[in-house]
């Protein structure tokens, strides 16, 4: 049975070329970039190249890229680092109700420390309201954090509009969690109006345990990790060179192919969405019709997402209910709840997340299996 992996927003399969780059830095160019000898210089060059690749992908400068251990660290650092650095200028923070837990929980921690946080609400498609953002901004506001692409439903937030409003009417820093957007959709040109932006390696066919934070030149935030002074003192700890090399390679490949892969995924998503909504009764799309090309969230009413997930698994098709992290806990998705979805819609939600390495046949087969499994489960569910 062919494996059909539709959980690319949880993590992706590492590209072979990327894995080779990782392997080489583990076995050949294994030096410590801080070492004074040749092995160190060689390692530093590899790191530099990766940093340049990522900077180029963002339209940023290499010195604005700081490597971290992944999306969670980038988000924690951006939010805490900005809040702590600007504490004297104000006490008010803004974010949205549908952020990834690594953002939401960080804000919750800051609330416990005495910061006040406004959570922007979203509409039924998951969009924030820019007017609400405008009204929420006060002279006390020191940070706004909005995700680029929602990881559960694929809504692309109006980042450019938000940036303009924030910059026009406040002194707040603007952080964007771009973990699900980077190298999947074109980002705001030169990251105009964005001060901080989080990235992750393993969502773009790179290794796990590596990410980055873009920190705009002249913007200063407090470091979380103190120590040997790596990353110009902003993020200490010996650099994860294999991760960095792999991340750089993956970013380059993704950016080189962005247009092609984007349009492939748009077609795949369209086919999957239409195939499900037209052929399987009582299905509801969660999120906007367009939206990120790699994320599709659909509720199969009268089923339970988890059962459907396991049923698909037995056919070698891998999907997710909500985001992988929230699947560990019982209870439903905070994103769907914030979008005003009914309990039945929340219970039956499945996230399909695509990659350009899928074929149309994979999609058609998935639709076929879905139709069978949904019918079977519905027969058995509580009447």
């Amino acid at each position, binding site marked *: 049975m062919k494996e059909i992996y539709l959980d690319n927003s949880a993590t992706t399969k590492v590209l072979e070329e990327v894995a080779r780059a990782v392997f080489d830095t583990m076995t050949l160019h294994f030096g410590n970039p801080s070492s004074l000898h040749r092995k160190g210089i060689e390692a530093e060059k590899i790191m530099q190249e990766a940093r340049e690749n990522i900077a180029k992908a963002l339209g940023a400068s290499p010195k604005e890229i700081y490597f971290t251990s992944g999306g969670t660290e980038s988000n924690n650092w951006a939010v805490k680092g900005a809040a702590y650095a600007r504490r004297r200028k104000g006490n008010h923070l803004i974010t949205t109700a549908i952020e990834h837990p690594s953002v939401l929980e960080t804000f919750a921690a800051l609330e416990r420390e005495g910061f006040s946080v406004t959570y922007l609400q979203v509409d039924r498609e998951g969009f924030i309201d820019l007017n609400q953002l405008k009204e929420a901004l006060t002279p006390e506001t020191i940070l706004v954090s909005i995700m680029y692409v929602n990881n559960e439903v694929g809504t692309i937030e109006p980042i450019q509009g938000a940036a303009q409003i924030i910059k026009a009417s406040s002194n707040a820093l603007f952080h964007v969690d771009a973990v699900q957007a980077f190298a999947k959709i074109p980002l705001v040109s030169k990251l105009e109006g964005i001060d901080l932006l989080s990235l992750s390696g393993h969502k773009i066919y790179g290794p796990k345990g590596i990410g980055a934070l873009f920190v705009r030149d002249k913007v200063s935030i407090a470091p979380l990790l103190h120590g040997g002074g790596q990353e110009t003192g902003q993020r200490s700890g010996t650099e994860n060179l294999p991760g960095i090399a792999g991340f750089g390679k993956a970013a380059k490949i993704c950016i080189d192919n962005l247009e092609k892969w984007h349009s492939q995924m748009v077609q795949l998503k369209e086919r999957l969405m239409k195939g499900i909504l037209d052929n399987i009764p009582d299905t509801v799309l969660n999120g906007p019709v367009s939206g990120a090309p790699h994320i599709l969230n659909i509720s199969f009413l009268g089923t*339970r997402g*988890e*059962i*459907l*997930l*396991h*049923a698909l*698994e*037995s056919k070698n098709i891998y999907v997710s209910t909500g985001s992988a992290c929230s699947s*560990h*806990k*019982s209870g439903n998705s905070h994103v769907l709840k914030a979008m005003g979805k009914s309990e039945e819609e929340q219970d039956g939600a499945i996230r399909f997340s695509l990659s350009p390495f899928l074929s149309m046949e994979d999609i058609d087969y998935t639709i076929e299996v879905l139709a069978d499994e949904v019918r*079977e489960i519905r*027969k*058995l*569910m*509580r*009447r």
Partner: protein
Amino acid sequence: MENLYLISFGEIALKGENRPYFERILIQRIKQALLPYDDSVQLEKTHGRIYCYTKASREQVLNTLKNVFGIVYISPAKSCENDLEQIKNTALEIMRNQNYKGKTFKVETRRPNKGFPFKSPEVSRQVGAHILRNLEGLKVDVHNPEIQLDVEIRERSFVYCEKVPGPGGLPVGCNGKAMLLLSGGIDSPVAGYMLMKRGIELEAIYFHSFPFTSDRAKDKVIELCRVLAKYSGKVRLHVVNFTEALKEMRKQTPEEFLTITMRRMMMRIAQKTAASVGAKALITGESLGQVASQTLEAIVATNEVATIPIFRPLIGFDKIEIMELAKKIGTYDISIRPYADCCTVFVPRHPKTRPNLSGVHDAESLLDVDKLTEMSLKDIEIIDVKPQV
């Protein structure tokens, strides 16, 4: 270097004619439990004791044997020739390794070997005096000593002063085999533990209904078996693929009778599986009134389909008491892992808490019970679970 441990067993020493049988099983269990650390353990049984000579470390021995049912005490000991000078020096060496400063002690001598020329009180006096002369900060108290040093004069002499408690009970296997219905929850592993403690060898049966229960739930059950295997050396787990039977029941059975019908089906399958492996009873974690399927009427209804005894060691326990026990035996943290049974979709909104038998029979009459049982019995995966070393 080989170390000596004296292993005392309480209850099984009382069992008259059966004693050699129990002792043989206990010796096997000890050997099996220590096997990962020492494959040539010497075990000698004499006078209601087992002498264990092993090169395993003290920590390995004590940690392992505290889980072997049937053992009452484990005493790290030393032996020497039947010579008073040697006995005195051995005793001194043992005492020196104790945390003796500021403590009271006494020496207690037994002399089954009457060929030894000194009487017990004389040996005690001389050994005690020798210790007092050589170690500072010790005082004698013959009534309430903090440290008791035991000297036993047999074909050789044995000296010890620690008594590390074992788990008691009866050696696993001496009371035959039974089949535990293991669910992944808190109760059933505790029930299994309690019967192992009474000498039962466990096999376990788990009803897997993928995709309604995830494979992580199955892994959890395997982990629970791994903990239980600590007490018995091995647990054979039968994983029944229950999905098809479950679907059939779901389609044919009135909702309020579904739980009880499912329980009855599980009992039938468990009983047949038990018979096929020579297990003579079933074990469940039921506790009276805990949930709808554990009311007296519901138990009567599940019991009806069984012809072999069903042991329910937790029947009179409160949930809190069961949780305490689960923590003690090390299954609690595994049981509370959140891979919820999706089977909850099948839990009726209003289950019959007091099902009458005729209602249950009517509900079941629409099912081909024998066919479903046979079908499930054909689809069983057997996993031999060993303890983690």
